[in-house]
């Protein structure tokens, strides 16, 4: 635990840092009196908010959350990230750190804090401070969160409560109290441990976000001030890498900020209602709460997932000769489903047909967020052996292994309610002749996997940029990542067990022979007899080890191999969801730009081009809505799929491991029988 606890803390330092950095950056700017502050200061509200932003939030951020972080989250970390898995967590969290640390190195983290705690409190009188970020933030957030009414309404109610409790004297500044409320409220209902986790989790998550937003705003201000629209989080994904260039960009910012100010005022009016930083928090929490209701519904749905459909893959047969030979399998289906023409039917399929089916299915369904079960990998070595070899036991084992894997693959495909409806699946099961799947040749085996992995890697780099707002997904993605890692490890170990058991079996056979020889040369009759009996016992035990090795492999190891592949597919779904998110965010950014153009045109007083700009805005607004909906849809699908996957996984593991333990049990029973038979022989030695 020591090791893991050493590693685990990073998320929290990280989560603190952005805020510190933000504020410290801001502070620096504010105090040096750069143009930013002067440009934006004119707004009338600006005098009051600063107090809040630096007074209240500071209190909360630095007192409450910290204490929360130190108490509850610590637990979370311990249980959630023991051992190597913490790498993942670190990855996810550490990126903001990396970006920021380019600006401020981590050792300074502690300094900004006292500064912030003291200085800003006095600073507000210069009425300069937090204004720009605050307003922009407000403006943006508002746009984002107007759409989901739940989030905003919730936040406003929360907000009122907050203001009532904490800041009853300054009601109109809800904006800035929202944050404290959200943050402090969470830990309170932490009675049940589960809640603690989700709540605290969101708490922790929220903070980086809340802080991140300022980061983004600020960075954004520095780089592309014109982006005061909804894309607070999207901008983060784009600007993250650019932080280091802040120096060059600051100068730009001054110019562009001036462009902003007119609209800033306009936005401010709206901005007053939805709170500044709060929206981020409620959204995170509400999104985790709202679906959790439907989650149960989903689960109920899932239990009805059984179809009367039995599929078996049998009779592997070598077709052809030499290197053009291939294995053909009999695919038999037994069903009462009316969608099929008859109740029982059989087709012959070759391995590439199975791969072809996967290709077709993943092409159609992956983008919708379905988990398409992956087929076993093509093994050039194994197949070549089969092609060339005669009756080699290892090639027989290979064929059997593949047959079983293909059977499990098909069973997984048809047990998926949506995939079963796919015409290609039906065609695969029913149609006599299938067009030869060509594309699998190039994409087969290792090459195919490699491609998949590359794609996954490339996308996973993007993941880091994605500002995950859905706690459920955030956790699930990490869980899957960890789980895959552990499964791989376990798989390696079970493989090692299989090998050692085979080795043991072989060595036992050799020993049995040797003991038989020793017995034959022993000149005491009873001892000689006992030794040859021992040799027989060892012979039987050798068989037992061999059978057990086969069970280790087919029942345990193959299960893990399947699930390593399936977890890959789950990750693929997460990637698809992220791509959808990316598309949405890109559209948001485009819209942003279009709006800037409009603003510039307005400012420059060029009404002739204004109409075109407005059309474009409308067009992009439509796209944003569409992409957002698509993202929501895929999120829902992936979620449903993952829940289904988890249930299926639990069922599979329970069934298989129980089966495996039963095989072990059987081995032990046999062992007892053998030794019991031997004992009197040993006692008979005289």
């Amino acid at each position: 635990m020591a090791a893991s606890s050493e590693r685990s803390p990073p998320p929290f330092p990280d989560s603190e840092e952005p805020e510190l950095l933000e504020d410290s950056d801001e502070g620096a700017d504010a105090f040096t009196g750069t143009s930013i502050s002067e440009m934006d200061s004119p707004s009338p509200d600006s005098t009051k908010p600063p107090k809040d932003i630096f007074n209240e939030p500071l209190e909360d951020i630095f007192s409450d959350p910290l204490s929360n972080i130190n108490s509850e989250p610590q637990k979370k970390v311990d249980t959630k990230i023991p051992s190597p898995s913490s790498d993942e967590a670190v990855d996810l969290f550490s990126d903001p750190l990396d970006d920021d640390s380019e600006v401020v190195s981590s050792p300074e983290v502690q300094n900004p804090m006292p500064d912030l705690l003291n200085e800003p409190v006095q600073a507000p009188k210069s009425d300069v401070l937090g204004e720009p970020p605050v307003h922009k933030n407000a403006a943006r957030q508002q746009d984002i969160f107007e759409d989901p009414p739940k989030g905003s309404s919730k936040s406003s109610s929360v907000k009122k409560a907050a203001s009532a409790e904490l800041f009853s004297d300054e009601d109109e500044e809800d904006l800035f109290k929202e944050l404290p409320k959200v943050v402090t409220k969470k830990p309170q209902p932490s009675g049940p441990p589960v809640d603690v986790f989700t709540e605290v989790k969101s708490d922790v998550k929220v903070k980086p976000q809340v802080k991140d937003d300022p980061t983004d705003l600020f960075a954004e201000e520095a780089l592309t001030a014109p982006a005061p629209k909804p894309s607070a989080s999207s901008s983060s994904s784009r600007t993250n890498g650019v932080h280091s260039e802040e120096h060059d960009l600051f100068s730009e910012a001054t110019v562009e900020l001036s462009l902003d100010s007119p609209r800033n005022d306009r936005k401010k009016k709206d901005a007053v209602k939805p709170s500044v930083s709060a929206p981020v928090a409620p959204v995170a929490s509400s999104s985790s709460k709202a679906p959790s209701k439907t989650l149960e519904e989903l689960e109920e749905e899932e239990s009805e997932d059984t179809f009367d459909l039995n599929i078996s893959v049998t009779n592997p047969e070598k077709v052809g000769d030499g290197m053009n030979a291939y294995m053909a399998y009999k695919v038999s289906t037994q069903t009462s489903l009316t969608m099929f023409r008859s109740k029982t039917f059989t087709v012959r399929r070759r391995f590439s047909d199975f791969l072809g089916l996967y290709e077709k299915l993943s092409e159609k369904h992956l983008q919708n967020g379905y988990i398409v079960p992956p087929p076993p990998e093509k093994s050039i070595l194994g197949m070549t052996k089969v092609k060339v070899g005669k009756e080699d036991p290892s090639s027989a084992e290979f064929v059997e292994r593949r047959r079983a894997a293909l059977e499990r693959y098909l069973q997984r495909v048809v047990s998926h309610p949506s995939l079963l409806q796919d015409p290609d699946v039906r065609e695969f099961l029913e149609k006599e002749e299938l067009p030869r799947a060509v594309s699998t040749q190039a994409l087969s085996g290792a090459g195919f996997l490699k491609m998949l992995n590359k794609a996954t890697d490339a996308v996973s780099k993007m993941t880091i940029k994605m500002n995950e707002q859905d706690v459920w997904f955030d956790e699930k993605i990490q869980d899957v990542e960890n789980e895959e890692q552990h499964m791989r490890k376990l798989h390696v170990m079970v493989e090692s067990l299989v090998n050692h058991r085979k080795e043991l079996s072989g060595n036992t056979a050799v020993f049995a022979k040797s003991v038989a020889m020793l017995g034959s040369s022993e000149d005491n009759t009873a001892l000689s007899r006992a030794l040859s009996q021992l040799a027989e016992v060892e012979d039987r035990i050798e068989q037992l080890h061999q059978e057990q090795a086969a069970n280790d492999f087919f029942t345990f190891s193959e299960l893990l191999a399947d699930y390593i592949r399936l977890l890959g597919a789950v990750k693929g779904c997460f990637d698809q969801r992220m791509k959808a998110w990316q598309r949405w965010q890109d559209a948001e950014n485009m819209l942003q730009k279009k709006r800037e153009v409009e603003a510039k045109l307005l400012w420059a007083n060029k009404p002739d081009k204004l109409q075109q700009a407005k059309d474009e805005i409308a067009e992009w607004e439509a796209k944003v809505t569409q992409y957002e909906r698509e993202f929501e849809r895929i999120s829902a699908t992936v979620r449903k799929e993952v829940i289904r996957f988890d249930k299926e996984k639990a069922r599979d593991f329970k069934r298989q491991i129980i089966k495996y333990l039963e095989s072990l049990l059987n081995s032990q029973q046999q062992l007892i029988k053998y030794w019991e038979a031997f004992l009197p022989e040993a006692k008979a030695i005289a």
Partner: protein
Amino acid sequence: FFKLSGPAFSSQLKVCRDKPFFLSMNVDLQTDATLQVDISDALSERDKVKFTVHTKSTLPNFKQNEFSVVRQHEEFIWLHDSFVENEEYAGYIIPPAPPRPDFDASREKLQKLGEGEGSMTKEEFTKMKQELEAEYLAIFKKTVAMHEVFLCRVAAHPVLRKDLNFHVFLEYNQDLSVRGKNKKEKLEDFFKNVVKSADGVLVAGVKDVDDFFEHEKTFLLEYHNRVKDSSAKSDRMIRSHKSAADDINRIASTLYTLGTQDSTDLCKFFLKVSELFEKTRKIEARVAADEDLKLADLLKYYLRESQAAKDLLYRRGRALVDYENANKALDKARAKNKDVLQAETTQQVCCQKFEKISESAKQELIDFKTRRVAAFRKNLVELAELELKHAKGNLQLLQSCLGVLKGDT
């Protein structure tokens, strides 16, 4: 950095004698109250092991009734060699010398573990360390037991127990200042062995006049080779059994991590199975350890004991050849009527020597067989009982675990 530490690696490791093990090799040694020897204590220091040899005796040639001395492996070898070199004992099976303590393999593993420390989790590291420590401890105990067996065999031997060197070994409470053989001596030993084995082949080729010895010769030659083979094969079998047990151990700990990671209801399942594997691997490791103790060590001991018996037969064969040559020389001398007296004395000496060896060797070989049969009986019965005990333990674990798991689903 990981040092040689922990209970098994502490430079001063004390070990209590593993009585049951020790007894397994010495089934029929007479338990004579007049001279009892055991190793009461052993200390492992870096590259040597110090054995505390404890003696209880009522024999008059010892100053006290009970005393202890500290001896090292080299001193045991010295004692053994002094028996072998003593012409007086040519007619006896000299108890085989204990094997040299060999911790190199487990030290090497330990080194590797230290190097790999960074690349594994703390749990894995602890687990590996425990495995290695257990292995080290097992080797250590075995070493102690093998040295003790040697002393007990000597103490129980009707003639060797009276040996002066043996008494010095037991009583002299200072270093015997025996040294290991130097290079020259080792080379000499090597040549002696070459000559001896070449001679052995020659001597073995001579048809024995006595059917008993002729039979024993054929038997021992074959038996020795077979027991050598079985011993090597059993080692390999047990080694793979140990590896499999280690795998189960690692599977258990990975399942545990999976169990603590998993957020679904599967976590309990994983934890339960991990718990089961943690227990079964212990049993599986015990099975391997017991097979090692009851089977491999037995075979190894009889490999050396049969070698000692073979050596006895060689000495007798050599004496026989000498006797026959002396007879021939006497015939020649008589024919030539030259040096007859000298030839007669030589012939007489050879005859006496041969007869003396033959006389004691016959009893020794019969004893060897009795001892062997009794030892095999004892060990095989114990082996079967332990195998049964472990298999039943495993079965029970599996049954109760399956009961729980099936109840859950």
